[in-house]
Structures are given as C-alpha cells and as structure tokens.
C-alpha cells in the first residue's frame, strides 16, 4: 500500500520536473509496426490510436475517396467483432472514439478510462488483423458517405478546398478531393476494396500510440500479444508525379449555390510541411492574420472596412503545402481591391524586415500554442503519430518551439519573397450561383 503511494508521488514529481517535456518510448515490433508509448498517470485516462500511412492521395485515380471510405468500412466489424459492435462496445465501456482521414493519412482512436487499456488494444488490433469487408457494409457506407459529402460540401463555401485542389495541382493526386467522386465509389468492387486493404493496412505501414495512465512494461507486453501476430505486407512505394512550379497567375471563376456573399482566394503551392520553409510560412500566416492586431485583419477588416473576414492559411501536407489568402468583401467592395490590398502587405514583407516587436509577438504566440498543444493525452497521441509519420521527426513534439525560435526575420522576408508573388498562384473568384427563378 505504502509502496503505491510512493510510486505515485514519484511520478508526480517527475511530471513537475519536466512540466513541458513529453517523455515517450518508441520501438518496432518484428512485423514492422512502430509503437510509441507516453506515460502520464495524472488522470485515469488512456488513448489507443493507430495512424496508417494512407490517405486521399493514394490509390488509382479512377477510384478516388477510398481512404476516407475505408475509415467508414473499418468500423463495420471484424472476425471477432460483429457488425455495428465497434460503436456499441466502446461507449458501453465508457469510452469515446473517432477517426479521420486527410490526403496523407488515416487516424483511428479510442479514449477509455485507464482500466480499459487492453480493450482498446484488442479493438485496434482486430481492425488491423482481420476486419470484415463485405457487400452489406459497402452498400450502407456508400450511402452514408454520400450524405457526409452533401453535408460537408453543399454548405456555404464548402467547395473552397475542392476548387483550390483542382486548380493548384495538375499532376499530383492532391488535385482530387479527399472524399472522392461518388461514381468512383459506386463503381468499386469488393475485390478492389480487399486489395486496397492488403496494400495499405499492413502493420509496417502504421504507427500505434498508447498514451496516458499506463504501466509501460505491462503495456509493451500487451501490445506484443495483440499486434504481434499481424503479418507484415510488402512496403508501400509511392512515386507521385511532381508539379512544375507556377510561373504565371492562373485565374479561375467558380460558383456556389449556397452563398450570397462572394469570396476571393489566392492559393500558392509550396514545399511540404516538414521543410523549414513550411515552418517559416506558419509564422508568415500568423503575422498576416493571427489576431486582431495582425496586419491583414487590422487593415482590411478594422481600418478600411473592406473585408468581413480575412485569412492567410498555411495548410500542411506531406508533399506540398497549400498557402491561401482568403477574404470576404464587405458591401460592394470589389474582389480585386481585396487582392490588391493583401498583396500590398505581402510586398512589404518581401522587401522589409518585420519589426522586432512583431517578431517577438509571433514567438510569444507560438509559445502559447506550443504549451496548449500538449494539454490532453489525446492531443499528445495525435502529435506523436503525426510528427513520427508525416514529419519523420517525432522529437518535434518537444523541439518545435526551438525550431520556430531559430527562424530569423531575414528568413521570413526571404521566404515571402521566394514563394508569395502573384505570378506563383491561382486566383479564384468564388461567386454566388445566380438564381434562375
């Protein structure tokens, strides 16, 4: 009894001493599954999560949307879990779950009270080892995904990302939407789904994270018990076509039936998220539109009252980032005016250094973000998986702030100059669809 108390005391002080540092252990199983454990016994919560290195960009181009469709299919059941039981077992054990898919990866997780750790491992290993993929599941989820698409794309400004993708990319599969074309899903056969699973859902194409109130040694053993028997698959090889740099402004007009106020966008194709330049662009986007004192918000929304909203977004992806300027006009302001005004600020960044105080402001903002990003075990698990799989550097969970702090004002200016000129982008006028009657 006394011993247990001692132990928790010890853990408590450990946590205090390393208030900021996220400790973790990583290793591989024989079948190639990468495992990362993070122990934090301060609350009786545990997360088990698996990130698979497969996303919307993978698979044949006449079968888009498979990755996301799989995210639905793999809740249908397994050899030991009946149809629909996934969604029953988890809440029945006090847990929550979800999954999400991006162009680059698919992520599944369960969060449980910590006495259900083994259950979480069983569920995820069942999914990896032998899920049931059959006609009935495919048919139902086909309809469900169509509704998901209507719900998320047929809403105001819901097609922005789709329009950016199809215009910014000419060769790389990022040109297709993540949810895919419904006719592709309609045409897909069961064999194709099975082949897709075999190709991308191997243990050696995945990372398992267990984080929270665990005993590390016991967890290592359980992980081996549940995941050890999954057979490795041939290595996934990718050879996506490279994009040629954009050298001339491309202008596009598109329509949305669900809006009344138009929008203007300028989208740039940039190096992928793990490059140093991508981190610099995070700072540029924060400088432009992070907070009420940011240059674009202050000028366009507040002082000149030209825009209702303005944003500079740096959307991280593995192969190419998307950097986009976005604004909604206020009243009758012309979309061109908004673009000109935004360009003026970017031109300043390209030619002058941002002030010392603005630079310090950015670092403070990134420090605050960094501290908050590790506030839950679920957040930590997701970061560990992402940094390991998509950035190839799991230590970013602790070093990220150092990286931002190492970026100089000169670098910010140079990166803005290198990537953010009007001839390097797609300009999109996003207009309300006219009503005919």
């Amino acid at each position: 009894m006394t011993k247990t108390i001692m132990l928790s005391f010890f853990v408590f002080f450990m946590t205090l001493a390393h208030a900021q540092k996220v400790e973790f252990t990583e290793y591989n199983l024989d079948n190639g599954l990468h495992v990362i454990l993070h122990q934090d016994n301060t609350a009786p919560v545990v997360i088990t999560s698996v990130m698979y290195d497969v996303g919307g960009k993978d698979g044949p181009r006449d079968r888009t949307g498979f990755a996301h469709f799989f995210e639905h299919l793999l809740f249908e059941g397994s050899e030991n879990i009946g149809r629909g039981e996934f969604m029953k077992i988890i809440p029945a054990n006090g847990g929550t779950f979800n999954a999400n898919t991006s162009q680059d990866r698919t992520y599944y997780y369960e969060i449980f009270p910590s006495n259900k750790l083994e259950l979480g491992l069983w569920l995820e290993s069942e999914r990896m080892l032998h899920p049931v993929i059959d006609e009935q599941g495919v048919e139902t989820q086909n309809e469900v995904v169509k509704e998901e698409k209507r719900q998320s794309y047929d809403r105001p400004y819901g097609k922005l990302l789709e329009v950016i993708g199809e215009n910014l990319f000419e060769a790389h599969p990022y040109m297709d939407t993540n949810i895919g074309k419904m006719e592709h899903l309609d045409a897909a056969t069961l064999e194709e789904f099975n082949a897709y699973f075999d190709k991308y859902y191997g243990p050696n194409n995945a990372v398992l994270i267990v984080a929270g109130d665990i005993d590390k040694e016991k967890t290592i053993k359980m992980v081996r018990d549940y995941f050890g028997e999954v057979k490795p698959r041939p290595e996934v090889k990718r050879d996506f076509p490279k994009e040629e740099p954009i050298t001339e402004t491309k202008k596009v007009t598109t329509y949305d039936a669900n809006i009344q106020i138009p929008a203007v966008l300028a989208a740039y194709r940039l190096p992928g998220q793990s490059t140093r330049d991508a981190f610099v662009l995070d700072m540029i986007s924060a400088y432009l539109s992070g907070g009420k004192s940011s240059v674009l918000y202050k000028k366009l929304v507040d002082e000149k009252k030209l825009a209702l909203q303005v944003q500079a977004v740096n959307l991280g992806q593995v192969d190419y980032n998307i950097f986009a300027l976005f604004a909604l006009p206020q009243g009758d302001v012309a979309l061109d005016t908004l673009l000109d005004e935004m360009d003026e600020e970017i031109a300043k960044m390209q030619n002058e250094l941002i002030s010392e105080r603005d630079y310090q402001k950015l670092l403070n903002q990134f420090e605050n973000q960094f501290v908050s990003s590790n506030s839950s075990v679920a957040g930590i698990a997701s970061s560990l998986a992402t940094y390991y799989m998509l950035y190839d550097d799991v230590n970013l969970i602790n070093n990220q702030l150092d990286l931002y702090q190492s970026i100089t004002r000169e670098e910010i200016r140079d990166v803005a100059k290198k990537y953010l000129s009007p001839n390097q982008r797609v300009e999109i006028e996003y207009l309300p669809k006219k009503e005919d009657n």
Partner: protein
Amino acid sequence: MKTLKIKLVTFIGVVLITLGASAQIDRSQMPEAGPEPTINLEKPKESKLKNGITVMVVENNKLPRVSYQLSIDNKPLVEGDKAGVASLLSSMLGNGTTSISKDDFNEEVDFLGASINFGSSGGFGSGLKKYADRIVELMADATINPLLTEEEFQKEKDKLVENLKTQEKDLSAVSSRVVSALAYGKDHAYGEFITEETINNVTFQDVKDLYKKTFAPNNAYIVVVGDIEPKEAKKQIKKYFGDWKKQDLSEVSDPELTENVSTTEINFIDLPNASQSEISITNNVSLKQSDEDYFAALMANNILGGGGEGYLFKNLREDKGYTYGAYSSLGASRYGVSRFDASAKVRNAVADSAVVEFIKEIDLIRTEPVDPEILKNAKAKYVGNFVMALERPQTIANYALNIKRNNLPEDFYANYLENINKVSAEDVLDVSKKYFKVDNARVVIVGKGSEVVENLDRLGYPIQYFDKYANPIEKPEFKKELPEGVTVSSVYDSYIKAIGGNDVVSTFNNMMMKGNASVQGMSISFTRKLTKDGKMLELVQMNGNTLSKQVFDGEKGFTAAQGQKTDYTEQQVEDAKIMSGLFSEQKVSESAELTGIESINGEDAYVIRLTENIREFYSVDSGLKLATETTAEQMGQKMTSKLMYSDYTNKNGVMVPMMLSQDLGPQTIDIKIEEVTFNDGVTASDFE
C-alpha cells in the same frame, strides 16, 4: 532482511513477466477490464469579494498557463425588435478601455500570445503563466471600463448585417433559427433571432444601456484554472476586479414554457438550394437538473439518440444509410424551459421515409422497456465519460459553477454516478413518455420543397408552411428549373419516341387493356378500351358484376355505379375530349401548358397541365408518362388523385405500362395488366 525481500519481489516479477510472454491471448473474447480507477473529485478553492464576485480556483501545474473565466449570472433577456443588441455589445467589448486605445489593447493581447474575448454576459482570458498578471489586468480593465465608441458601434453593426448574409442559404443556420422560433415563439428569449431589420433598430445608446444593465459584479463568478496558487489568484482578482462597483439590477422575469402543439404537425420551410433536408422533431419540456427524474431523462435520451449506439443512429444511418448522423438531445435548464429535439440531415428524396423512421424509434422507446444490456451500456458510458472528463482541470471548476448557477445540492456531482446507476428500465419508459411527446411535436423540415413536399403529404400529418424567418405562409408552388428549349411538344415528342415512335404508334386504331387488382382481399378486374377517334370505356368488375363503368363516345359520356347512371358534366366532357385518343400526345392541345418539374416517386418529371383539373407527368430521364393527376370536387372539397404508370413493357412494338397504381387517400391500388391487344377486341357497341 530488507534487501532480500526486494530481491524476492523482483524475482517474482521476472517470473510473472516471463510466464506472461508465453501466454496466449484469446482474441475471440473481449478483454476484461482492470480494476476501476479511483476518482478524486476535488473542489475548487472558493472565496467571495465584497462586491459580490465569487472566485473559484483550480490549481493545476501540469502546464505553465492560466485561464480566467468571468460569468455574470444574468437571466435570459428578451431583445425583441432590437435583437442583435447583445451580439453587438459582445463584439464591441474587448477592444480597448477608457485608458487604453483599441489598437494598443489588441496589440498587447496579441503580443502576450494571449487571448481575451467577451460575450454579452462574461468573458474569457487565457495565456502563459509568466504573463498572467497582465492578462487579468487587461481583462478586468476591459470589463469594468470598456471603450465603447459610436464609430466602433457602426462598424460592428455593418459587419453583423453582412455576416447574416453569409448564412442566408445555409441549411443548418436556417434550420436552427426556425426550429427555435417555432418551438418557443418568436418573442421568447430562446426563440427570437437577429435580422437585418432588428439590427437596424439598435442604437449606440441601446448598447451602452445593455452594458449598464448586465455588466455588474453582483452575481459574477470568476473561475481561475491553471498553474497558479489559489492565494495568488484571489489576490489578483481582488486587486483588479475589487473596485468594480455593485449595481442596482432591475428585476428580469424568468422565461416561460411555451405550450406544445395539440397534435403533431409538419412545419415545412423551402430552401431551394438545399441538397439535404434537415429534420427536427421537437417539443418543449420542463426539465431541471435538480428534478428527480433528471438522470433517467439523461439515460433515455442517450439510448434514443445519444451517439453511434443510439436507436436513431443505428436505424437511420447504419441500417438505412439515409444520413451521416441522427441524434437526439434533451435540454435541462434552471427555469424548466427547454426542448427535446431529434434531428438529422438526410437527402431530400428520403425526407418522408426518415420522418417515419424517427417516429418509429421514438415510439419504441416510449412503449417498449429498454433491453437491460442497452441500459447497462448507457450507464457505463456515462460513468466512463465522467471519469475521463476529470483529465481537464476545467471540469471540476465547471461542476462547482453549475451547482451554484442551477441551485443544485452540494453533493450533486459526488452522487452523480450513484444516481446514474439507480435508473431502471421502468424509469426510462416513464421519462420517455413524459418528455418525448411524439403526439404533440413539431416535425420541422427545412429542405428543397420541389423534391420533398409531395411525399410529405402522404405521412398524414397536417402541414404548415413557413418562410425562412418562421412566418406562416400559404403552400408555395415548388418548381424546379426547366431546362431551356423544353416545351409541351418536345415533351410529347420524346414520349412518343420512348414508347416506340410515331410510325409504329400510328398503325393502331384501337386498344384494349385488361388487368386485376386486389382490394381488401377481393379480386377486382379492370378493362379499358380506347379508340383512335376518341372513344373510351373503363369497366371495373368483381366476380362478373360491374362495380363501375365509364363511357365516352367522343361527344358525351356517363358514369354508372351501384345502379346509378350520371351523365358527364360539361367540364368532364371537355376534359375527356382533351384526353381522348389512343395516344393523345400525338397532338398538342391548345390549353396544354408545361408548368415545371416535380418528382413522382423520386423520379423527376415534366408536368403538363391539360386543364384546370388534369395534370400529366413525363419522366425527364426516360420520356415515359409516369402519372395522370385528376382533381375532382366532392362535397365542396377538392380531391386530387393520381394514376401512376410503371413496368413499361413492349407489346406489338409499343411500350405499355403493365402496372397502373391508383392512389385513393392514404392507400394505393395496384392494377396488374394481364392482357394488351391492339386493333382487336374493340367494337362500336362498347361505347354505347
């Protein structure tokens, strides 16, 4: 001795681990749970300032950050024709103080990497521990001495008007506005909404008055969470918020419960751009967290629609594939004024079927005792979520605040799990009957009328129509856009082409169809004869006895039924003439008019109005005729009925519908055609 003992323990440990490694797991069985984790429900450190502010502090040193939440415990306010004043006040607050300019204020907040935001009855500030003192100072200053200027007021007003427009065609925005307005009433604090007009009614003075009326320390709570000692936090709050003066607050009355409708009705709102319909089945309830049946109500709602394991989700998504998600919610409020709401976004074509399934599931939980395992699982979910929520230090602060604001017993959360576990299947049944009022509900549907409304008619509920701002309107005409170039004759041409072409069709002088139908277990035979020159006979028989007979000889006609013969009225003669002929589409009648596109059993069809009483429907896709609709006056009431054509089959080179379906009120009679002949079996005497 001591060393030896430790070694022994280590040895046993090693043995256990080695044994464990070789043990096989049994995958076919769900793993057993370990021992329940013990939970420690702490309480925040609480103190009260002289001006009325209650300070609650939860110290948590895990991360070097602190947050401050200010909640002013005001009753909900009716904004009336000035709806938007509260929203304007919130957006104007947090932009400077009487001694710090807006730009300096915003710049400093951003510089600290902090955030400070305000609502109309509180605010929230957070940031790094090292800047905490300045963050509270700024937040307090912005609370007590806000910079409210006419210029800023005008700016925010313009923005609010424009922002409304971004939601004008948004299904979710329209639905949530209309559902609350219909359920509570448009003049109720929970039902009112902002429009351009109400925003324009608001003056700068109104905003300042509202600030005076609502921003006071009397009933305020400040919750501090994070890396800070309670003593220090209290000192901070006292230092910066201590000078905030108490105010004489005017008495605001409690919101009242709006009565439910006396019988269930459909409220339809047309949103022509919508690719889905949002369905909300809602009724008002009087439920407080302090009520005895609160925990049973939580369980009942969770079982019905609390998540992926709920009745609604399992049926509407996982079984039918109608929707991405179907859920229900049951509100509880300290005033006993809230709503039950079961909702989903479904594709327009299945809106009617989705309503049927919703009602079915709500009926089920009201009439059938819940399966013991489902109840057990629902409880386990709440227990688990309760345990896991404690990971966030905000949770215990929220619990403490909730107890105060909702006048709950001090041990409400200490007994929470016990009370959950006490709920019985019978309790669930009782509260379901009490709170899910399926017979006094509004079924609010926002969707694309031209694809939805016709099928809704069949559900048998009265339908009321409203505009996007919950104003009652007459039933609108739901038209789909007609593609350019489509005319009556182009529709007729494609119909003739679809059934075999003009050449084939012109070779026939007359036609006979014979078929059978089953009505309430009795077999009825049906005969129809038509001639090219416009004669028509329709005979309905049972066991050789004629039930009804209709004859038209090209000039006059009659109906005979139950021994009574009635001659055609002038109108009937006119209608019969226009419809006459084997394939009346070979000529275009003068009165024929293409009125739009409507859907027949989910299939888009061009609508051609032949006379005031007759409309015909031709498939946009196949060109085939899908239905004929006739309107007749009976005892002063207009009754419309449809004859639908399907199962088109090739007979003598012509596509003929082998299934005729006649709708009669809520039911449909299917006539299966057994025999079709051309130029045979029709004589002149048939039409006498």
